[in-house]
């Protein structure tokens, strides 16, 4: 994979992560769950883990190419 394509992918991932971590999507997740707690922390951790997983895949996968 060439360098400019990698940069494009990284920027796309950053935009995705920013969208996941910012208000419009956040407000959707910010609902009170069964225990009186908000779903927000769970959503944040899941989204965070997803972004890290994608990044790991992107960087380590590239090494093998």
């Amino acid at each position: 994979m060439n360098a400019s394509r990698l940069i494009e992918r990284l920027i796309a991932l950053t935009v995705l992560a920013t969208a996941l971590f910012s208000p419009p999507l956040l407000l959707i997740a910010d609902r009170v769950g069964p225990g009186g707690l908000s779903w927000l922390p769970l959503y944040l951790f899941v989204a965070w883990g997803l972004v890290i997983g994608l990044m790991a895949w992107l960087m380590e996968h590239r090494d093998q190419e």
Partner: protein
Amino acid sequence: MRHDLVVLTVAFGYLALLFVIAAWGDRRAEQGRSLIGSPTVYALSIAVYCTAWTFYGSVGRAAQHGPSFLLIYLGPTLAMLLSPFVVRKMVRIAGAQRITSIADFISARYGKSAGLGALVALIALVGITPYIALQLKAITLSHAVLVDYPAPPALRLAAAPFWADKSFWVALVLAAFIILFGTRHLDASERHEGMVAAIAFESLVKLAAFLSVGVFTVFVLFNGPGDLLARVAATPELAGAMSLETVPGGALGWVGMLVLAFLAFLTLPRQFQVLVVENVDERHITRASWLFPLYLLAINLFVIPIALAGLLLGTGGDPDSVVLTLPLASGLDGLPLLVFIGGLSAATGMMIVETIALSTMVSNQLVMPLLLRFGRLPRATRRGLAGRLLAIRRVAIVLILLMGYLYHALVGDAYSLVTIGLVSFAAACQFAPAMLIGLYWRGANRLGAALGMTAGILLWAWTLLIPGFAQSGWLDAGFLADGPFGLDWLRPYALFGLEGWDIYTHSLLWSLTANMGLLVGVSLFTRQGPLEQTQAALFTEAMHPRLAQASLWQGQTSRGELRALLDRYLGAAATARVFADRTAEDDDQPAPAALIAHAEQALAGALGNASARVLIDSVVRGEALDLEAILGILDTTSETLEMNRRLEQKSRELAHTSEELRAANERLRELDRLKDEFVAMVSHELRTPLTSIRSFAEILRDSPDLPEDKRARFLDVVVRESQRLSRLIEEILDLARLESGRLALSPRRLDLVELARHSVEAVQRLQEERGIALDVAIEVDDAPVIGDPDRLEQVIINLLDNAGKFAADEAPRVKLCLVRHKAHYRLSVEDNGPGIAPEERERVFEKFHQIERSDDTPARGRPRGSGLGLPISRGIVAHLGGRLWVEDAPSLGGACLVMELPEAPADKETPAEPATS
């Protein structure tokens, strides 16, 4: 009861362990077997980001402000996603320019400006000192909690003399540690490998300690996460905890904090130190870009459960101490000690790296330029100035830690941990525009950067720092509500009447707007100096593959002068390294450009870029390359690259074409060979009947007294062979016509059923004579196709004839089927012979191909074929839009030849004519 002595022994024992690790790391580095040459160690060293603030403060913030504590870690995650090109570019530049700190970086970017470097160093000192104080506060507080629990921690700092204050001694011990491992080399751009190894170890310790408390809380204090959640659900006061409503400033505050953490992660002096200066290998960034965010996720995993447990169990006291009071309240001894050590790791790690970064800035950006300007440097001594420089740095380390201690002792009580940290973050953010914009926009200039940063830091001070002093009682807090001198629009927390924002987002908005606005605006309307232009080009084009800095100097000096300069400032050993491969030459010779560049780099690594440039300018006559020359180099190299690329493409095309040509040539040779073969084959085939005709005719001519019956039989042979000869010639002509496309076919609509029956009749008698059983299975009533009836009949007869030849010797059978298949009619002829192997199936359609019979006897007078029947048949069928192929016989077990012809369109008004007309 935990004895104070035990706690102190463990704490100092831990610091001693750090000494050992750092010493080991330095030893290994000297031996060339680096301990830190791994991306994992690099990622762990970046985790110096997680300070005592993370360790104790996150839980406190989660308890008070819900999930907003996560923003401090989501921002760096975003930054790390971009690190493979942003941080990589910074590392590349730092390597080429021997950058020693963020102040050096910004100073070098804007024309090696000493003033700008000093400004950055001052801002860092003012902005970061509270952060160091915060770490001291955390250590002291956690120690007090550990020793005094369950009584509230005795923390009356101001009342006690400083020698009774443990944080004072912690500061001194750390100063000793940092002096030992942070100032071993003069060259600050050389890595502090031992220190980095110790930092990575500390990152592991604090992670393990925090996870231990988390596991203890969730699985020992409660029966797993389910139990904890159930207890929370049963507590109405906790309803709505962890929602966005608890975040200061709501959605807007959320975004502000995210931006704050994102920028601060890249601009905090200690982060710049570990990310850029201490980076051993650019490739480590690849792994760290996801491993470090993973570390952040892991260390935050249990923050919310611990915070909730603290709220549920109400251990009392400061929410910042819940991590410690939870295990203490359970009466444990070991775990609280582990937590204390974890917190100590977090705090000391930050203080070590931050102090090294700041002391380098102080010595290189503040003290050295002043000494150079006022000529206060002593004349050359035997050790040069190296010892003096290191002494400056050591004094700076002690002073910085003492400043942190003072801040802690005087102001520290008024703030919670997070508040102090965020104030420092906002200060560090003021470096972001000059650094990040300067990294990508060549037009950004020194005046813009200086004015922008000044305005930014003044606004920061007005909106965050001074109100903080006011709140801690140093100033009259009245101006917070009414503004200074009653000027309402200058209220620090609502500048220009902007109300209702949380204080950090508010401060960040005004300071960054002013900072960026001035940087961009002033840069657009003022000019850059020549050196500024050069440096701007070198920074923005840093990733350019052919950019070698060595060729950029064009000034002139003698080698002797250069040697004297280095000798004076770096000492003999460093000078010898620079001149390593050039000792043999004469000192009166002019120094080559590469040597001048090398000397400047060596000076920059020790003294900072600005001072190095001043010193080099003092001995070199003439200028460095200006912007034009650099752009020229960049352009020519990019032109060369482009040419190379085109050349490569052309040569690839050429190789491709020649490959095609070779293949075509190969094909032609093959065709030529086939033609020769064909001619030989035809001659052979023609000669056989001709030979027998000739020999029998000669016998008839030479033997007039041959018996009548013999004569008749010989004449019969001559006639039969003549027929065979003319049939062969007919076939060869057919084939030639087919291949040249001149075969005259007269296609028309006909009924294949009728044609098949007719053909069967034609061969039936002959087959019966040979004892072959011929079955016919026609499953359709009529089969309208377009074809030449004579030619098609020739094909069918040929198929039947062939099948008869290859049917089994015992009870030979042949079967003809005609079926409809989709919009086609399929006529198949099968036999019960040995069949044709799959790999032979296409070859039977080659000219003169003869199937080898195993017994090789033309049994029962079956004549040999010419080997042209099937190729001709396939040619005819193909001309009529059909196909002819071989497959396994479905019912008789031998070979099966299938002819497929498309159904004639129905709209043909003329009815099918008899094919046998």
